[in-house]
């Protein structure tokens, strides 16, 4: 359970990015955070693992307060939160395997990581995860040799090998084509379900948010203006979040609910076959 109370962030430039946000995310919930650019979505998730220092407020993950942690305890806390980034943020000159194993850095000593002598259990888990996302044959490729969708799947492995209690996902589909975007979102959703993980997903594609999240929070100018299920996202609500626009075609029709329909739009590629995804953990 993630509990955020009165989260406020004022940047050094004086911009008030977050104006006292209250937000609870129960275990196992996949929540999408939507809103226009500059609404503070990215600041919210970066405050949770303190890549950005909050100005005021409290954040608790499973009853541990995060905002007041000392640097050593913060490192141990960060291990419990996996983060998936916009534009993947893989270390491009490291191999796929090194990128995945970097998710274990919080658990191993410096020399162990420097000499790349990770415990066998970590290596087993890395291969298991890579196989789960269909990339185990790429382990020794350099990260910059991969396509966008493949890179994001490596990013997902890096986050999951931390064995996190919460996933922080920042615009996972920002530079992906529509089909790959759906595959990545579906993968995140399935993995969360398998591991009973809760996730906060920043996303600006409203349709994707509605398709894959069970709860939607709308952020505007640092304040929550909508918090509810995806199907109550009406044109009026979207106007409130984003401003005046013709929203009729953006909102998902009720008969799109069946996953089969989505697959007709985006048939699975040979790399991620649905059977394979369902069969392997």
């Amino acid at each position, binding site marked *: 359970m993630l509990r955020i109370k009165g989260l406020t962030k004022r940047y050094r430039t004086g911009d008030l990015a977050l104006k006292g946000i209250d937000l609870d995310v129960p275990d196992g919930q996949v929540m999408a955070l939507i809103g226009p650019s500059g609404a503070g979505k990215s600041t919210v998730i970066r405050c949770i693992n303190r890549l950005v220092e909050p100005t005021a407020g409290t954040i608790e993950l499973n009853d541990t307060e995060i905002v007041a942690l000392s640097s050593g305890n913060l490192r141990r806390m960060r291990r419990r939160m996996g983060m998936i980034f916009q534009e993947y943020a893989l270390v*491009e000159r490291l191999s796929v395997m090194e990128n995945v194993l970097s998710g274990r850095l919080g658990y191993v000593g410096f020399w162990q*990581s420097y000499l790349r002598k990770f415990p066998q259990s970590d290596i087993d888990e890395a291969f298991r995860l890579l196989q789960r996302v269909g990339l185990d044959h790429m382990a020794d490729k350099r990260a910059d040799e991969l396509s966008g969708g493949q890179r994001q799947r490596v990013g997902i492995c890096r986050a999951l090998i931390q064995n996190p209690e919460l996933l922080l996902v920042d615009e996972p589909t920002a530079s992906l084509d529509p089909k790959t975007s759906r595959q990545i979102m579906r993968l995140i959703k399935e993995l969360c379900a398998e591991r009973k993980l809760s996730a906060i997903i920043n996303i600006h594609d409203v349709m994707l948010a509605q398709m894959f999240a069970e709860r939607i929070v709308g952020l505007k100018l640092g304040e929550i203006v909508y918090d509810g299920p995806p199907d109550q996202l009406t044109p009026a609500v979207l106007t409130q979040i984003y401003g005046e626009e013709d929203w009729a075609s953006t909102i998902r029709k009720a008969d799109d609910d069946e996953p089969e329909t989505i697959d007709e739009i985006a048939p699975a590629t040979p790399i991620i076959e649905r059977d394979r995804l369902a069969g392997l953990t």
Partner: protein
Amino acid sequence: MSIALPTERRRWKKPPVIKRAWLRWTLILGFAIYLALAFGTISVNWARVWEGLPRGMQFVTAFLPPDFTSRWDEIAQGIAESLWMTVVATAVGIALSIPVGIGAARNIAPLPVYYFCRSILAVSRSFQEVILAIFFVKLFGFGPFAGFVTLAFATIGFYGKLLAEDIEDMDASQAEAVRATGSSWLQWINYGVQPQVMPRMIGLGLYRLDINFRESAVVGIVGGGGIGATLNTAFDRYEFDSAAAIILIIIAIVMFTEYSSGYLRRWVQ
């Protein structure tokens, strides 16, 4: 509504970089006048240039043929000294410049550390190798040790500054992603920063090796040992044929290191 301008036969010219015409012309004229005046102060004495030409010719003929044999032992010793001086000074200089360079990168070092490391770099970079060598020869006496210290110190300024700049240019999101996993500071440098700067820094290390060998010859002339000292002795004895041999060997070694370091750099990147 704005007034619609006619779209045909409208004149267009690239806007000048300096908008104010008077300022633009003042700068251009001022620079031209300064250049003309500066050229006047050199006071070239063409008669002396003319007289110098045959003397230069004599000098060149004295070099021929180069004599490799009669002073070969001294030459071989000088080259060996220069080579070890170069290799050790480059290795030690790079090792010392890594912490300084990391500390001098604004995006990862706290402000006091940044200013401290930047000032080390500034001091190291503000002196040319020959001036440093004169100073260190006074400090440690004649010989290759003074040369080694000179080259190592100069390497810190060169390598540390370029390392700091490369770190400042790195992709912040890759480093942020490593930090988000709960890594320690050293792990963060090793996984998030090092891979991003490594290929360029290997190339620059080889390039510095190359520079240090060339500088070792100059440093020797002011007393820093190595092939430069041998060369200086040859000139002092008016043994121009031996000096020519040394110069040819230096050229050959510089060409070899330049070619091989260029090849290695391409291979690394």
